[in-house]
């Protein structure tokens, strides 16, 4: 059909019906509200959507029947939301998920909240009972706009069939505009069933929001002067660098000016981690050298980050000697958690170009760079591998990294395994680290891998999962099999809710309440039951073989790595503690 054509303008679209030559292949004309919703998605360039059917959303699905949009039926709506989220992260455009009213919509909630916390562009479409029944506690009625108001950029209740397509287009555009985030359109069944022949216009953000622009010249100049005179400057790249597609600009700025770089977790890959200026990521389980640099810098140039508490530790001791330049597209982030001495409001890509232009002389930071290198040597990411000991998770991550191309995509659950993946995989490309940061959602990994693979079919996709996290969304394996997705789930199985066990040992006198499993399923067999390939590994040799076999297999596979259950994640900054006081072992906490 017409998927490759540019989206028609409103006028063109309106004309289309009367002027289109009947001999040319054409889209089926809009006849209902539901059809105009689907047309709006097509106009916006949507190629895939993730969802689960149900009564109130059936008209939309019926309209999808006639569309080229690839609908992926997920096992659970939470999976649909995470898959859409990851699809969007990898593609750099809003992912789309669908669910019916009531339980369908509430099952999306975790995924929407996750996207909100990580500023991931996503559009959720939910069915709703007919508007004539709203408020009557009808079957499967939930106040979806009420429930999701605090976790969306904005949501809409679509009460008019003539405009519902435009509303969906607006919601799609708003999700991506400026600081991205999730939007939702609640679609009462009478709106989607109603007749209309109105073609929606192109996806356009609302008039009340301001599109991002270049930063104010004066603010850029002030920041540039501060950068020029800094002796210990440090760049902090946040997720905004990746979202604004500003990776090149950010790298250029760092390299041209010889400024060391730390990243936040969502920005992993924005600076190649094997670059000499890159100190990897800072924060609770960040590298020792990143946390030393943050603690001792005299100027912190933060781009597109929100100074989350997992990054800052206690704000009182965060970068305590540093003046702060804060570049952000969202003005409300400026001085929200950490005071910005030099605020720069604007799109990261434009602002970084402006800064590159405005800085005349690179700061004299030779000694500081030397200091950062020394810290790298002092605090290496190392781990012990005694002979015949249980498999170390860090080894598994490194082996997977070695066995896959540089642009392989890694998704994760939440817990120790997530931290090991972030620490021991060397990321060199943006949009290859796909994880749940702000919300910390166990179960994100597998559905995210599904979304990522559909977004980038040519790339290797590895989900580094935990046993606990995997069990939260394991049913999505059925989808990976059905869609024949070549993904590999690497379960770092410690038969523990490991991160909690680590905290119990450190802060609750080892009272391991509800953190260990009496019984853990055989993940390899489970994988086979789903129709995927299952492998398991207990030794280093088995691990190496399983990795080879699983990556060779052309379809979904699961490797159950039985890792050392006693292994803990370090370095660690205790909650609210000073980044510079990161512990390297339990006795230092």
């Amino acid at each position, binding site marked *: 059909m017409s998927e490759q054509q540019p989206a028609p303008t409103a006028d063109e679209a309106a004309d289309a019906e009367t002027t289109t030559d009947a001999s040319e292949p054409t889209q089926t004309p809009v006849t209902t509200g539901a059809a105009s919703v689907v047309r709006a998605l097509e106009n916006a360039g949507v190629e895939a959507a993730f969802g689960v059917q149900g009564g109130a959303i059936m008209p939309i699905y019926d309209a999808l029947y006639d569309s080229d949009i690839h609908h992926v039926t997920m096992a659970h709506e939470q999976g649909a939301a995470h898959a859409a989220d990851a699809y969007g992260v990898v593609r750099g455009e809003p992912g789309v998920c669908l669910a019916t009213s009531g339980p369908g919509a509430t099952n999306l909630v975790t995924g929407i909240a996750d996207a909100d916390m990580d500023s991931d562009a996503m559009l959720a479409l939910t069915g709703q009972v007919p508007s004539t029944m709203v408020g009557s506690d009808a079957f499967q009625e939930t106040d979806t706009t009420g429930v999701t108001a*605090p976790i969306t950029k904005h949501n809409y209740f679509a009460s008019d069939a003539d405009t519902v397509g435009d509303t969906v287009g607006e919601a799609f555009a708003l999700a991506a505009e400026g600081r991205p985030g999730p939007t939702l359109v609640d679609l009462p069944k009478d709106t989607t069933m109603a007749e209309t022949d109105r073609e929606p216009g192109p996806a356009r953000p609302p008039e009340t929001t301001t599109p991002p622009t270049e930063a104010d010249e004066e603010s850029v100049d002030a920041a540039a002067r501060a950068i020029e005179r800094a002796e210990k400057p440090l760049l902090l790249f946040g997720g905004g660098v990746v979202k604004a597609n500003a990776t090149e600009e950010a790298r250029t700025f760092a390299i041209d000016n010889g400024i060391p770089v730390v990243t936040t977790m969502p920005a992993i890959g924005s600076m190649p981690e094997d670059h000499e200026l890159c100190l990897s990521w800072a924060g609770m389980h960040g590298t020792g050298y990143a946390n030393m640099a943050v603690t*001792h810098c005299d100027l912190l140039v933060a781009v597109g980050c929100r100074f989350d508490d997992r990054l800052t530790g206690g704000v009182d001791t965060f970068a305590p000697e540093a003046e702060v330049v804060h570049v952000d597209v969202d003005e409300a982030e400026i001085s929200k958690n950490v005071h910005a001495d030099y605020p720069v409001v604007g799109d990261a890509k434009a602002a970084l170009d402006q800064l590159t232009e405005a800085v005349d002389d690179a700061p004299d930071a030779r000694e500081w760079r030397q200091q950062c290198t020394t810290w790298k040597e*002092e*605090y290496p990411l*190392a781990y012990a591998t005694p002979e015949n000991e249980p498999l170390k998770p860090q080894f598994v991550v490194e082996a997977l990294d070695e066995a896959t191309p540089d642009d392989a995509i890694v998704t994760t659950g939440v817990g120790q395994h997530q931290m090991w993946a972030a620490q021991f995989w060397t990321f060199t490309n943006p949009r290859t680290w796909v994880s749940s940061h702000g919300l910390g959602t166990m179960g994100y990994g597998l559905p995210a891998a599904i979304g990522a693979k559909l977004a980038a079919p040519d790339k290797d996709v590895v989900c580094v999962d935990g046993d606990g996290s995997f069990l939260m969304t394991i049913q999505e394996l059925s989808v990976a099999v059905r869609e024949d997705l070549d993904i590999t789930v690497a379960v770092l199985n410690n038969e523990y809710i490991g991160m909690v066990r680590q905290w119990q040992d450190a802060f609750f006198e080892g009272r391991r309440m509800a953190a260990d499993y009496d019984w853990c399923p055989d993940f390899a067999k489970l994988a086979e039951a789903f129709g995927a390939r299952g492998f398991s590994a207990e030794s280093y040799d088995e691990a*190496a073989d399983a990795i080879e076999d699983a990556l060779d297999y052309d379809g979904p596979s699961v490797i159950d790595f039985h890792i050392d259950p006693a292994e803990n994640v370090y370095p660690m900054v205790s909650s609210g503690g000073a980044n510079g*006081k990161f512990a390297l072992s339990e006795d230092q906490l």
Partner: protein
Amino acid sequence: MSGEESTDAPEFEGPGMPGPAPEERPHPEGRRNTHGVRIDPEAEAKPRQRTAVVSALVEHEPGVLSRVSGLFSRRQFNIESLTVGKTTVDGHARITLVVEETDAGIDQVKKQLGKLKPVIQVGELDDDAVRAELVLLKVRGDEPDKVHAITQMYEGETLDAGPRTITVQITGDQQKIDDAVDAFRQFGIIEIARTGQTALARGDTPTTPGEEPGHSTEPKDSTYSDATDADDEPN
């Protein structure tokens, strides 16, 4: 395949990770306060709260009030009052908020409000802004003369007077209303309803930045509008 990250480093035996312990590292002296501002810990006092009147011009669509109030509860902004009403522009409403926050908190209130999709503009009113509040007071009707006198004193109005109760209305700034309420206590206040402050900027200053009057506020020139109406009519 080697499990060691760094091959030239000496074999690391664990547990945890290698490197100098926290007490072996240098630690900077500097500190930040709760707002992330660098401070001298000796001299720093707690950031002080103040009262601000914030006006938000919004699209008058369903749910806008709940979005605004939801924002305040979610972000734990201290709100004293909230009033809302239509403006002269079709589809617009003004929400006037009285908030009690630190400077940084008030800054956040304004910026976070500005991010809500239905919010068109946000402004904080100067101290000289015109503010008013309305209170309805229902008091016992035992001493009608005295009630009347106090009502007059506060330039109020009697809205309802019966054998048992008298209801009066007082308008004015917050101080005046507070004083009036105190003055009426002697009669025994049965019920009270206050609207909370509403406000406009003084003189030519727009209440929210760039705010423009709606068409219906333009001085009505009947000849002009008749003429245009006539133009539209087919001859």
